[in-house]
């Protein structure tokens, strides 16, 4: 049995009888599941509905084939929410802007201080474009914004604004000044220890109750601030862990050539600390990207919120699996790209390592 022996040494899954049986059994199960899914998702799936047929063909195929028609028909709503259909080029352009700035961030040729500026510029442009009210563009209040642009906006702006706050908090927590250190520790621990949803509720419900008369802040802005506050606390701990990885000798060398605190931080310590922190930083961004779906609790409809709104429509009741699968695929797609980006970033920066 030479071939079997060599197979066993090469592939531990077939090393002995128990392993071989387990491998075959599990393999068969996986194959069956893949087959069943393929049958449901592709072979018997309903992609389009004839006009005026309602969802009857889909209901007929229930249990045997997926109803992708719901995704096809309601894609616009899921991507752009209840944004006026006549002006949907605006959220489309916003999505394109965000995707391009993400793409530019991946490419090393674009790495400069302009990249940071472009993140801020794109966020600002997104708000201006979605809001309208200029050059004859219809005014669209933020309550009508929804879907993917909202997800992009909340996560991008949230991360961009939370980042500098987080760096200050992390430095504050390591400060030798007791007042600054205590404030930072209290902020980080309190905010980290409270569920994000609580913050959103406070932003949406409590804040207007306690805000002075005539002092109204847009609900979206309040939600955004809540995300910034929460993300800053998480990021602060990420940055702090990066700072701890920098040997004391680096601080001393920076001091010995005459750099005072802030230049030493900005030029020597933080560039190294943030490099070490890339994986957890990206992790936090991915978490934030998905956490933005919590805005549904305060009546804003991001990508997931819009998906949920689709399946309460009587026409599409019962087709949650298709809608959720599609939404999950969109989220996964973006998060996967982001995580690939972080791996690439680590490789690119790997050359400049400590000796």
């Amino acid at each position, binding site marked *: 049995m030479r071939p079997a022996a060599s197979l066993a040494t090469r592939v531990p899954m077939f090393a002995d009888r128990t392993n071989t049986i387990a491998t075959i059994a599990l393999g068969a199960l996986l194959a069956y599941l893949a087959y069943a899914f393929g049958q449901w998702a592709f072979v018997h799936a309903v992609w389009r509905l004839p006009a005026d047929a309602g969802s009857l063909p889909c209901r007929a195929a229930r249990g045997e084939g997926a109803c992708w028609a719901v995704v096809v028909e309601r894609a616009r709503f899921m991507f752009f929410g209840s944004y006026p259909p006549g002006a949907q080029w605006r959220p489309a352009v916003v999505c394109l802007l965000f995707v391009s700035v993400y793409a530019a961030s991946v490419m090393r040729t674009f790495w400069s201080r302009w990249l940071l500026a472009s993140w801020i510029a794109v966020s600002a442009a997104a708000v201006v474009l979605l809001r309208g009210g200029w050059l004859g563009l219809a005014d669209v209040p933020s309550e009508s914004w929804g879907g993917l642009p909202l997800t992009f906006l909340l996560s991008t702006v949230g991360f961009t604004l939370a980042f500098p706050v987080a760096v200050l908090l992390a430095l504050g927590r390591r400060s030798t000044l007791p007042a600054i250190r205590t404030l930072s520790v209290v902020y980080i621990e309190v905010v980290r220890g409270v569920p994000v949803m609580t913050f959103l509720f406070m932003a949406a419900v409590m804040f207007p109750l306690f805000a002075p008369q005539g002092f109204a802040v847009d609900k979206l802005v309040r939600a955004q601030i809540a995300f910034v506050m929460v993300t800053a606390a998480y990021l602060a701990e990420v940055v702090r862990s990066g700072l701890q990885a920098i040997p004391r000798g680096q601080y*001393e*060398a920076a001091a*010995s*050539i005459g*750099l005072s605190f802030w*230049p030493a931080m900005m030029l020597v310590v933080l560039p190294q600390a943030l490099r070490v922190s890339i994986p957890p930083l990206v992790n936090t961004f991915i978490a934030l990207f998905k956490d933005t779906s919590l805005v549904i609790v305060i009546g804003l409809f991001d990508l997931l919120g819009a998906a949920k709104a689709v399946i309460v429509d009587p026409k599409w009741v019962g087709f949650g699996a298709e809608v959720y699968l599609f939404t999950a695929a969109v989220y996964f797609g973006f998060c996967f790209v982001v995580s690939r980006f972080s791996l690439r970033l680590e490789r690119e920066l790997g050359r400049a390592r400590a*000796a």
Partner: protein
Amino acid sequence: MNEHERPESQFHVDMQAVNKWFGTLHVLRDVTLKVRRGERIVICGPSGSGKSTLIRCLNGLEAHHSGRIVVGGVELTREVKTIDQVRRRVGMVFQQFNLFPHLTVLENCTLAPIRVKKVGRKAAHDLALHYLTRVRISDQAGKYPGELSGGQQQRAAIARALCMNPEMMLFDEPTSALDPEMVKEVLNTMVSLADEGITMLCVTHEMGFARQVANRVIFIDGGRILEDNEPDTFFRAPGHERTRAFLSQVLH
């Protein structure tokens, strides 16, 4: 002879009865040390004797608890401003090199001139290349520290310190982390520096170096300066029993 000579201070370093504690450990005991401009001093002593702490007090990396330290006419206090003022004129070389790993050798050298002295980019670049040539690693200027050997890294660290045109250089065991075959190249660089008339305080166990370049050799133990003599006398007739025991261990 030295254009930086300040009338208010006869000594480049003037330490008066300096004491320092790490918790309950008394690391510097009534240390009084005067160094003239251009003097080259080697400080030796057993590990934990306080020799590193002593020179780290001279650029404010460690704060002293009592006594007085005046460097180049500036008294070191807890005030950040005076410390920065001193650091700008005092270079330091560390045992572990402490180059900035995320910057190239050239960027390591130009960082402080550009950011602290506000020298132009071009001028800083030329300055860095000048000193990198002097320590004979100008061909490595574009590499990252991690791509260099230990000896090359330490020479780059010396060049980085020199780029601030310091009046004084502190060396904290600059060859202790090096493989034996690289010690020589770093010591040669330091010897050539000694010919320039720059004030040097060097913590090292390289007694050959001490003989060759030092004006004075200081032996410190238990935070106290036990011996302070010309190298000739220091090695020929050490006055203290502890010095003799120490020398018999490092010389053979």
